[in-house]
């Protein structure tokens, strides 16, 4: 428990901590998003994360009621930290105030600062509210977004019906509605039209190309969660059953341990990784059972074989239905999924089992290339997995073993150990067989799917003082079978080191180095490819200064180096951000970035601020300048307006992009407008 003097120190510190937390949310999103797979598309939707944070900002988690699951949902706490918060409550009694978090072992000032806005200690809690009280606490949230690339792209200019073109216009539309009764009910509806897709026409005659909705009820007697409509499932380490966001290797080293949050309504606009149907979690004592059923339509590349047996060569996950070809594949395959999860939890120990069966309406048969030799072929697949996680003293142990019936195995084990209050160690071992198949597999891996890989990850988090934080990891991996563009078994390493220095509450420095070494086919003209080592290096320096309570400056310089055989590419990126945040009507931020890369291979990724709930993580390549402006205008309480204008200029080029996305000229600009009503 806190002593009185500490308590007053904290009261004094608190406003600073909260201010710190607000500016750091963006950094945190960036750190999280960066750790996701590199090959996610540029417009991948990460808003699940921001939406969750915004939800918990409005409806903070009660420290005295949470079993830790909701804390895990915030995504920035390590499993050990979540356990420490719960353990403190058990040892010292219920939290009297949120400031008491400071006294929890394993939480540093920065983490407490991040956490404070999302938690509360409810006074006089424990009585049941009436139905009317619940209904009156319900909130509506309605949001529309419009976006467009202002220059004409090739795909919209083609009128010749024999050539491929974009059938719809270049507008991007997104609509979202939520009705929430905190901790009881959530109604969600998402609607999306991508650029190039038709609207109330053609294949999209019902308006938007993608609709997603769900009704979720929580905590009705023993029913923890019931979702009708679209939902996501996250169990174990993600080997058999995981949809939605999953983070991989990155600055947040503790994310190597997946923290599955089970059944949740699906609220993202990504068009592939979710389930559609019904699922529920039913809890009896230490047991929770989550049966689920899903039936949904997928888009897949259809191959009409002349011999009469047609098949699908690949499932398309990007959700784009813009060209006649994409439209012809739209929703041409159905997927039925049935299964259940059973989880047992006692004290610090959790053990769970997933069993699921997937059936497709057609046969999947990837192209007959050597690297596809062990890929999934057929129309049905059954999976089972068993997973555990537990706390023992200062250690968190986790793992999962999964099997796809008739084919391979995959397993992973790991630990996070806080060896002292200054140093934590993270280890993860993984072995995913080349013939292991699962449709919703998002376990930690170097490759884009957790298959055909063996690896060992070692990470360290070292905090010698409150002002210095150093994280580093080394990951060594092998691919026992061939991969796309790698025509032999191969291996590689990924090394990462990052130093954060926070001399005071208003200044932050960051220094990062990353080295990646992988094999890839050489560019020789011989029919048999010889593997070459591809080495990528990244050096990043960043600083942030909070000039006043409203104004923050942030800049970054990053160098990249790419080497494959004799081919070398160098790159740099520099940007300056000015962030203006006020409690008044208008807030906003500006970035000006200069960049030069010798080629596409040395492209540099950087997170960009965007309108609320949207996010951009574009790469910078070639030579040019990019700038953007984000504005937020609080028109009145409950009505907000956002506007984003971003421009990239490439002085040396005459055309940008390729194929249907080609733009004549050297400028690409984008406008986004967003309106939100809360009532």
């Amino acid at each position, binding site marked *: 428990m806190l002593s009185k003097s500490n308590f007053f120190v904290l009261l004094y510190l608190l406003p600073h901590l909260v201010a710190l937390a607000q500016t750091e949310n963006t950094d945190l999103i960036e750190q999280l998003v960066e750790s996701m797979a590199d090959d996610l598309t540029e417009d991948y939707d990460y808003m699940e994360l921001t939406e969750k944070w915004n939800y918990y900002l409005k409806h903070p988690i009660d420290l005295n009621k949470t079993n830790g699951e909701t804390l895990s949902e915030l995504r920035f706490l390590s499993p050990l930290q979540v356990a420490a918060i719960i353990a403190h409550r058990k040892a010292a009694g219920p939290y009297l105030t949120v400031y008491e978090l400071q006294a929890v072992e394993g939480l540093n000032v920065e983490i407490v600062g991040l956490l404070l806005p999302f938690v509360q200690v409810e006074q006089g809690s424990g009585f049941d509210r009436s139905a009317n009280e619940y209904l009156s606490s319900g909130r509506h949230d309605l949001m529309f977004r419009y976006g467009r690339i202002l220059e004409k792209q090739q795909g919209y200019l083609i009128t010749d019906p024999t050539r491929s073109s974009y059938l719809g216009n270049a507008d991007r539309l997104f609509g979202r509605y939520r009705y929430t009764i905190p901790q009881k009910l959530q109604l969600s509806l998402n609607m999306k039209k991508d650029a190039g897709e038709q609207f109330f026409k053609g294949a999209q005659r019902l308006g938007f190309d993608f609709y997603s909705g769900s009704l979720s009820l929580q905590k009705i007697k023993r029913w923890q969660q019931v979702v009708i409509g679209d939902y996501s499932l996250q169990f174990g380490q993600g080997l058999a059953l995981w949809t939605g966001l999953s983070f991989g290797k990155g600055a947040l080293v503790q994310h190597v341990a997946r923290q599955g949050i089970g059944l949740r309504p699906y609220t993202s606009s990504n068009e592939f990784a979710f389930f559609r149907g019904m699922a529920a979690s039913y809890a009896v004592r230490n047991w929770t059972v989550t049966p689920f059923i899903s039936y949904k339509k997928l888009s897949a590349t259809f191959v009409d074989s002349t011999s009469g047996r047609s098949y699908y060569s690949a499932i398309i996950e990007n959700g784009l239905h813009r060209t006649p070809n994409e439209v012809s594949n739209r929703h041409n395959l159905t997927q039925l999924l049935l299964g259940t999860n059973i989880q047992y939890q006692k004290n610090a120990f959790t053990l769970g089992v997933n069993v699921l069966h997937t059936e497709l309406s057609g046969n999947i048969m990837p192209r007959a290339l050597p690297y596809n030799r062990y890929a999934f072929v057929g129309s049905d697949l059954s999976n089972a997995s068993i997973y555990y996680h537990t706390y023992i003293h200062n250690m968190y142990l986790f793992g999962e073993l999964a099997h796809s019936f008739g084919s391979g195995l995959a397993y992973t084990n790991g630990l996070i*150990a806080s*060896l*002292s*209050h*200054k*140093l934590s*160690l993270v*280890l993860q071992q993984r072995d995913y067989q080349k013939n292991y198949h699962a449709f919703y597999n998002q376990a930690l891996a170097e490759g884009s799917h957790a298959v055909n890989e063996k690896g*060992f990850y*070692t990470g*360290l988090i*070292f905090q*010698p003082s409150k002002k210095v934080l150093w994280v580093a990891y*080394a990951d*060594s991996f*092998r691919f026992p079978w061939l991969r796309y563009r790698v025509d032999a078994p191969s*291996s590689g*390493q990924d*090394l990462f080191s990052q130093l954060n220095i926070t001399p005071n509450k208003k200044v932050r420095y960051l220094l990062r180095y990353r080295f990646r070494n992988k094999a890839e086919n050489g560019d020789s003209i011989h029919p048999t490819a010889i593997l070459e080592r591809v080495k990528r290096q990244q050096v990043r320096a960043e600083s942030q200064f909070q000039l006043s309570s409203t104004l923050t400056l942030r800049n970054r310089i990053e160098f990249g180096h790419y080497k494959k055989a004799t081919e070398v590419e160098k790159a740099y990126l520099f940007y300056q951000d000015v962030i203006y945040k006020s409690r008044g009507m208008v807030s906003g931020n500006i970035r000006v970035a200069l960049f030069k890369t010798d080629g596409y291979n040395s492209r540099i990724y950087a997170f960009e601020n965007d309108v609320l709930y949207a996010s951009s993580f574009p790469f910078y390549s070639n030579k040019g300048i990019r700038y953007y402006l984000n504005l937020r205008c609080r028109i009145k309480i409950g009505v907000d307006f956002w506007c984003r204008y971003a421009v990239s200029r490439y002085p040396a080029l005459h055309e940008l992009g390729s194929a249907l996305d080609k733009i004549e000229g050297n400028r690409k600009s984008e406008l986004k407008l967003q309106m939100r009503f809360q009532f």
Partner: protein
Amino acid sequence: MFIAFLNLFLLLTALNLSAQVYPAARYCAMGNTGNALQGVEGLTSNVAGISSLTEVRAGIYHQAHFFNADIRTQGLLLAIPTGLGVFGSQITNYGIKDAYGEFKANFSYAKRFGPQLSIGLAMNYHQLQLSAYGKSQSFSVDVGLQLQVKPTWTIGARFANPGYASYDYDTYAVIPVIIGLGTSYQVHTNLLVTADTEKILYRDKIDFRTGLEYKPISWMSFRGGIGLNEFSQFCGFGLVYNKMNLDLATVIHHRLGLSPQLLLAYAF
């Protein structure tokens, strides 16, 4: 055919890695770091590391390289503290049985100068045996020093074979000239972290290594480490029973696999 090819490959790689004789188990498990560590294992790394010993210690160790019983290192360690300083000796043999051997015997001396500075010196006798070609021998010197900056923080440096001693005929086997720098930091009473950088002069590469030792209970330690240039992982554990030490370590080379080592030491 494949086995023959593999043996040839391992042999050539082993010869090429001949300088890669790992230090004794504890240091080896801690990522092949030892420039700033104290202990009898200093005889196999920075000789200044034996200067803090207060009792006579003897050890014996065996390492099977790449889990291949044919390529191995065997060694004996002995350190005797006296009023004049700590005297030590090490005898090792690295090689392939009946085919190739690098024998090394040394005599070491280390002394503390004040509470912070330790200096050590080793004189080595090397003998190279190639069953088909005969023998060659040579003498070399190693120097090392350690500075305890704070009770929890030590830095160390060593220079192995500064005189560029070599065998008298041209073979793959060389007596490596090594410059090493390292640091160790006692994060907590039960947690020690190390980082070393070493350069072998005839090679282009500089190796960076880091390791840690965690002692959850007084009689048991867990160790681990990583070497970056020629990526390798290391792990091991140590047990103490009365005056007996048992240390187990293994090198995990990302291509060549495991090289386990066992060391048994006794304090008199």
